[in-house]
């Protein structure tokens, strides 16, 4: 036989179905929010490592004159070396649309079935690729809009073009996604490479160092010893690439996303706790008189506490049953979306048990904990106080300074005055509701502020560059010929020499050791010759000055390059290895250049001296066009290419500003999307909190409304009063949300900006964010307060006055 107290509880649930359902939904949404972040976080944390480490990534790549089987076997026997394999890579180009070419990094694999370093997996089509065919990385296939079976035009570094069949696709989790790097990846056999017009000799030695988990220093020391040994064996050792150990090329970007997810998980947890506290205290407020009655007829505190904790636990469990599976599904979906964008495969979507425990506790333990305090307070007060509690008497209005000030407000509509004063009657609950709404609004605004700030940074970065195209040549060419050829093309406004050469920090062992990945695009350092008088790039001088024509050994570092030289300052001497030569520079300036890779600028004379290239030859140009729209840039790119090829000038890469912009945006897109999605969840949680608060406020004052109507107030006066109160709360929270969004925007902008560009994003207050949230909060407040107010206005005066 069910005890009547439990029957009461059950029927209370039924009687207040709407409110109880809303409470369950609110807690479920909180669990959902936490579930999404936590689920995605735990899956990605595990799977990113699994994807990248699953490839058995090389610790270092050594460029030799040739790598044959015998040297590979010998290297495997060297101290500290766990594995070794031969490969080659060639930066070619692929035609994605007629006369529109994109970079294509070709990896040359001797035996696809014996791959054990930098492994990649067959996805579809042939494996291994037959001779004269190519496998494309699955993301690259999408990037070039290609399909298996298509024939694509590939241009080798010498400018020779060849149609080649796509025989299959692979997944290479060790590379940055093609669309993000604006580079396609292909895999061919040495025979196919020879057929494409390149030599078939492999010249890259991939090595895995045994103790690579001990960090870069260990790897570099082992690789240095290996390089000395190779030199002693008669090999020529060129550039050595040592990428960040055991880290995916986009690990920084992923870390940013994961860190943000974690931060927002914690914030969502806090927000949920506030929401739950608001709802639970609201629910208890509605039960105060009934608790008084029960105490009057003999109920002990422990019985009442148990009763309500049971109710809360039940509602919490119901919320868990709804929120947990949805959170798991959404978290997995979110992880899938990020994984797809990062070109990762989720081998498992399992979420660890602790994450489930956190969510279950969110739904049960948090409500119980937040309910315990108010419940204890309610059960400890005397029966007289509980029976006399009409919801607003305990904290009587008029007893504080603020009340006095509010009491002096005149000259506005009486209903508004009443609503304004009512807003401050239950201060504890008001603070909680404001906290909830302001936190949600603050996060929402932060999301949009960051997005706006990011876009502004890109706009600013683009605005300081006054050229449209950069062309890197296959081999040094006579400057006069190249400049004259390009300048003669109609539509070209100006062309300048901007030579480029990869550089490395010079080492005592004389090795050219760089910190980049096989794609050469992450973690690289470049030396550029810059015409001192050029206005193609406007830089913000942080210290020192820009180059002068008469600088003999001067160099200017952009802020990204300073990362390679800790504590570098103007006047310092830096030493680089460029084109196998060690050369020193005198730092004359440090500049800030957003969206430009780590670069050291020097004069054309010094560049020639440093690289050993003839002064009259160049390997790169920057071009400004008369028209700068994307369509013109695209057509002019093709036109310039054709003219250069016709003049026997081979092209290595053509980079337009649009491509650069896309690549930069691609790196942050997921982050902004994540931030925005989280903001929407927060907005929903905030709206639910508002509804709960207003519902309670109305229920508590049911008798008061009866009195108001008994003395002549019409139903719509009551309605207007409550809606105005809701609006006041909403507007107050809006102001606080703006204040909250400032440090959040600044902090997150600092984190993202530094991770991406080594420059904090500037603080931008998006007017759009202010307006959207104002509309959301105004509509939300009206909606949240209108329904309970409408219900209250429908009760008869007798019903309201006898309300228990």
């Amino acid at each position, binding site marked *: 036989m069910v005890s009547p107290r439990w029957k009461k509880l059950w029927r209370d649930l*039924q009687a207040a179905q709407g409110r109880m359902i809303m409470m369950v939904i609110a807690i479920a949404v909180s669990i959902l929010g936490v579930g999404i972040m936590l689920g995605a976080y735990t899956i990605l944390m595990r799977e990113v490592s699994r994807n990248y480490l699953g490839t058995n990534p090389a610790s270092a790549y050594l460029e030799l004159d040739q790598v044959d089987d015998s040297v590979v076997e010998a290297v495997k026997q060297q101290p500290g070396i766990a594995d070794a394999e031969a490969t080659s890579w060639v930066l070619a180009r692929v035609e994605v649309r007629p006369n529109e070419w994109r970079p294509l990094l070709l990896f040359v694999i001797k035996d696809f079935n014996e791959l054990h370093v930098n492994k990649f997996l067959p996805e579809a089509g042939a494996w291994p690729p037959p001779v004269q065919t190519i496998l494309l990385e699955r993301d690259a296939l999408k990037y070039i809009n290609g399909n298996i079976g298509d024939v694509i035009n590939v241009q080798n570094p010498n400018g020779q073009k060849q149609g080649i069949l796509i025989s299959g696709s692979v997944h290479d989790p060790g590379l940055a996604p093609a669309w993000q790097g604006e580079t396609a990846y292909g895999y061919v056999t040495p025979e196919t490479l020879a057929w494409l017009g390149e030599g078939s000799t492999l010249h890259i030695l991939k090595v895995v160092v045994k103790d690579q988990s001990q960090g870069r220093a260990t790897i570099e020391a082992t690789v240095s010893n290996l390089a000395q040994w190779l030199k002693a064996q008669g090999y020529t050792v060129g550039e050595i690439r040592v990428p960040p150990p055991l880290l995916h090329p986009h690990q920084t970007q992923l870390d940013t996303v994961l860190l943000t997810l974690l931060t927002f998980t914690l914030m969502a947890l806090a927000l949920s706790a506030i929401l739950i506290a608001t709802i639970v205290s609201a629910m208890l407020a509605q039960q105060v*008189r009934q608790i008084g009655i029960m105490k009057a*007829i003999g109920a002990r505190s422990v019985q009442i506490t148990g009763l309500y904790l049971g109710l809360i636990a039940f509602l919490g469990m119901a919320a868990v049953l709804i929120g947990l599976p949805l959170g798991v599904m959404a978290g997995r979906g979110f992880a899938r979306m990020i994984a797809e964008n990062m070109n990762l495969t989720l081998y498992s979507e399992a979420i660890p048990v602790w994450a489930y425990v956190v969510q279950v506790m969110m739904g049960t333990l948090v409500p119980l904990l937040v309910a315990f305090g108010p419940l204890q307070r309610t059960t400890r007060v*005397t029966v007289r106080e509980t029976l006399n509690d009409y919801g607003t008497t305990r904290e009587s209005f008029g007893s504080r300074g603020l009340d006095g000030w509010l009491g002096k407000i005149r000259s506005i509509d009486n209903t508004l005055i009443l609503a304004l004063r009512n807003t401050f009657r239950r201060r504890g609950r008001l603070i909680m509701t404001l906290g909830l709404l302001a936190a949600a609004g603050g996060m929402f605004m932060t999301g949009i502020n960051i997005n706006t700030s990011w876009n502004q940074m890109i706009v600013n970065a683009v605005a300081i560059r006054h050229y449209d195209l950069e062309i890197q040549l296959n081999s040094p060419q006579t400057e006069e010929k190249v400049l004259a050829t390009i300048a003669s093309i109609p539509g070209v406004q100006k062309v300048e020499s901007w030579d480029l050469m990869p550089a490395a920090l010079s080492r005592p062992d004389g090795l050219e050791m760089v910190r980049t990945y096989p794609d050469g695009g992450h973690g690289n350092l470049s030396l550029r010759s810059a015409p001192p008088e050029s206005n193609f790039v406007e830089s913000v001088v942080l210290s020192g000055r820009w180059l002068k024509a008469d600088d003999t050994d001067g160099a200017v570092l952009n802020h990204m390059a300073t990362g390679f030289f800790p504590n570098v300052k103007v006047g310092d001497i830096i030493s680089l290895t460029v084109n196998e030569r060690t050369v020193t520079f005198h730092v004359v300036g440090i500049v800030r250049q957003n969206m430009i890779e780590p670069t050291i600028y020097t004069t054309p004379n010094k560049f020639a001296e440093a690289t050993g290239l003839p002064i009259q030859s160049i390997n790169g140009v920057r071009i400004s066009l008369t028209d700068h729209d994307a369509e013109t840039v695209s057509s002019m790119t093709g036109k310039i290419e054709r003219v250069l090829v016709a003049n026997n000038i081979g092209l290595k890469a053509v980079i337009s500003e649009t491509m650069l912009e896309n690549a930069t945006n691609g790196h942050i897109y997921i982050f902004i999307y994540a931030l925005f999605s989280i903001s929407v969840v927060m907005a929903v949680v905030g709206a639910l909190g508002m509804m709960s608060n207003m519902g309670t406020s109305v229920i508590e004052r049911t008798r008061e409304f009866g009195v108001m109507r008994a003395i002549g107030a019409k139903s719509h006066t009551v309605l207007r009063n409550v809606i105005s109160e809701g609006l006041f709360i909403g507007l107050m929270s809006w102001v606080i949300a703006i204040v909250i969004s400032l440090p959040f925007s600044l902090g997150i902008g600092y984190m993202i900006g530094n991770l991406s560009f080594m420059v904090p994003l500037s603080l931008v207050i998006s007017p759009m964010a202010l307006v959207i949230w104002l509309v959301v909060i105004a509509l939300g407040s009206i909606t949240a307060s209108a329904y309970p107010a409408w219900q209250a206005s429908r009760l008869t005066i007798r019903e309201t006055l006898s309300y228990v």
Partner: protein
Amino acid sequence: MLSQVKNHHREFMEGKSLPVRESRLIEMNGVSKAYEVAAGEFLALKEVNMRVDKGEFVAVVGKSGSGKSTLINMITGIDNPTSGEVFVASTPVHTLNQEQLAIWRGKNVGIVFQFFQLLPTLTVAENVVLPMDFCNMYSPRERRERAIALLNKVGIAEQADKLPAALSGGEQQRAAIARALANDPPLLVADEPTGNLDSHTSDAVIQLFANLVKEGKTVVMVTHERDLKQYFTRTITLSDGEVVTDHGGKNG
């Protein structure tokens, strides 16, 4: 009568203990109650001394704000005195904490409110069972039978399985009386139980209380209705927190 009350008070203040009778149920000694209000301190009861014997039907009357409800709240432990002592059946009610009060009240006092205060989501019978459940009185099977018996006693057994909202005011008050009797307490305390009822129903409810007194219960009732005095064995009048008259009591 006033002089008699003052004599009692003087004797008490002089430390002369009153003869303790076995028949005594309630004893209030120098009970004062002060409330903090915006204007300062408000003294609702001023050193009240009162004794009630078993089997009495006591009406507490007085103007609004005279301290009637405060007085009975002291007896039931619904509120605690600022100073003074309250004994009910030799239990020092003023010394009990909220937890002890709940246990004591559940078994020893039945309370009837002006607005009935039945729990709206429980049926009438379940409302009556609730005190037994809270105080763990009677076996779970007996509880329902006892509730029906009590409802039968107050004349609304046929309404047992209805929700309070379906009952008239008089029926709800009868249900509240049945609930007050649930644990068979020796004392019933009612705060204007007829204040929300028509005169015909009021008569019936008072008659019900009178019958309970005949059965040996003690009833203390706050009321405004002086024309019901034929039912009361004693009438205590309060004014400004002080007992000003005490008619008809054995103490009197």
